[in-house]
């Protein structure tokens, strides 16, 4: 978006402005507006997750798929897959990459569902935010109450086609992406990157709810 085609740009801007005007009313009414700020998105996610966990009418079995749906919507599993595989990503063929994303998504969604289930008596407070390299954004949260009182959980966000998505969860300084990257490096080091896919499949097959 440099300075060369200024007229083009301003025309575009005018059009955008007009559109915005037309949609303003709709957007104002919609809680789930496009291009929600990272902070608002995290707040909304927290609210939704806690609502599911605290709904006394829902059994654990009913909660799990709902939590997984939220995970699939809020996380950018595609980016996360590349980050955890790092140098091994390019060693996979495109179909293998697709397979990896698919299996890793299932694994993390399930894992997220299992972990988050235990959090019902806790509150989550957003304590701050911080811009990061590459246009990323970190939202800092703190767990209040319950067994995990005081635990710090940061969400690293990246914008993807206009929407902010979570690309990492950092708990007390421990990055989920870094952790799985370190593990996958070892696994791939002992037999190649496709072994990671096999292991993911094994885990997903063993999961109680492969959704």
């Amino acid at each position, binding site marked *: 978006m440099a300075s060369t085609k200024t007229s083009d740009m301003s025309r575009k801007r005018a059009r955008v402005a007009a559109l915005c005007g037309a949609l303003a009313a709709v957007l104002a009414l919609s809680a789930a507006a496009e291009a929600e700020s990272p902070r608002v998105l995290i707040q909304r996610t927290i609210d939704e997750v806690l609502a599911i966990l605290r709904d006394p009418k829902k059994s654990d079995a009913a909660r799990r798929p709902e939590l997984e749906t939220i995970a699939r919507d809020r996380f950018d599993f595609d*980016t996360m897959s*590349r*980050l955890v595989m*790092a*140098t*091994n*990503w*390019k060693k996979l063929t495109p179909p293998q990459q697709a397979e990896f994303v698919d299996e890793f998504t299932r694994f993390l969604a399930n*894992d997220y569902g*299992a*972990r988050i289930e*235990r959090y019902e008596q806790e509150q989550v407070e957003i304590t701050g935010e911080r811009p*990061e*390299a*590459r246009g*990323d954004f970190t939202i800092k949260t703190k*767990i209040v109450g319950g*067994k*995990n*009182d*005081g*635990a*710090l*959980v940061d969400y*690293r966000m*990246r914008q993807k086609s206009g929407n902010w998505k979570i*690309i*990492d*969860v950092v*708990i*007390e*300084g*421990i*990055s*989920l*992406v*870094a*952790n*799985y*990257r*370190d*593990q*996958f*490096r*070892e*696994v791939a*080091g*002992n037999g190649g990157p496709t072994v*990671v896919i096999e*292991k993911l499949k094994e*885990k997903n097959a063993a999961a109680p709810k492969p959704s």
Partner: protein
Amino acid sequence: MARALAAALLLALLAPAGAIEAEPAGDVQAAAAVPDDPSSDSHARSPGDPWEPFNRKVFAFNETVDHYALEPIATGWNTVVPDRVETCLANFFDNLQMPVHFANDLLQGKPWKAYETVWRVVVNTTVGLGGFFDPASAWQIYKSNEDFGQTLGVWGTPPGPYLVLPLLGPSSPRDATGMAVDAAATAPVSWYFIPVYVTVPARSVDIVNRRALALETIREERKAAFDWYAAVRSAFTQYRENQVRDRAEAPKEPQETQDEDLYGLDEDE
């Protein structure tokens, strides 16, 4: 402790780190207890772990000890002792560690934190009935977790290679030195004033109790891991670095570099 556990619950990996944070020997041991590791023979592919073959052996040993001794005992303990009592015991032992945290607060030039630590002990020892309860946290007088390993870090000592100690679990030359210094500074006091028939059982109770509190967390985390050794190593290393960095106020260079690396999509080409 609560914090460490919290994190552990989410990611698990915290267990080892939490251990160190809470009580040098107790949880570390727990954390170190680990199941079979499929990729046991990888040859130092990991930066920061040149001693990997040795470390994996010690890790496997710790795992075995946990599997056949500590975990079963902690499981039994857990069925007999109510959760509330477990928490109270953990609070009690935490409170006893405060002199260590106090000294390290001072060594790191944090007089305000040292002051808070004193306050905590006063509040929890009195209102908290000898330290079994933790009213201080409810009043936002948070726990300091400084130890000498962190103090060395704040003074600029790098951790050195990852190191797994027999029974004590994940560490580094810096943190192992710190642990020894903390122990050497406090042990004589307890040896002198408290008879062995009290300290040894008390210590055992502390270790078993902490392992009991982490039972579910560690079980879950082992299950979620692809390479449990690497998972624990990664969590421990990141957790300790974060602990040191938090206190060192200025962000450290290596972290920045690692950060770049971690979130870049294009460096793999």
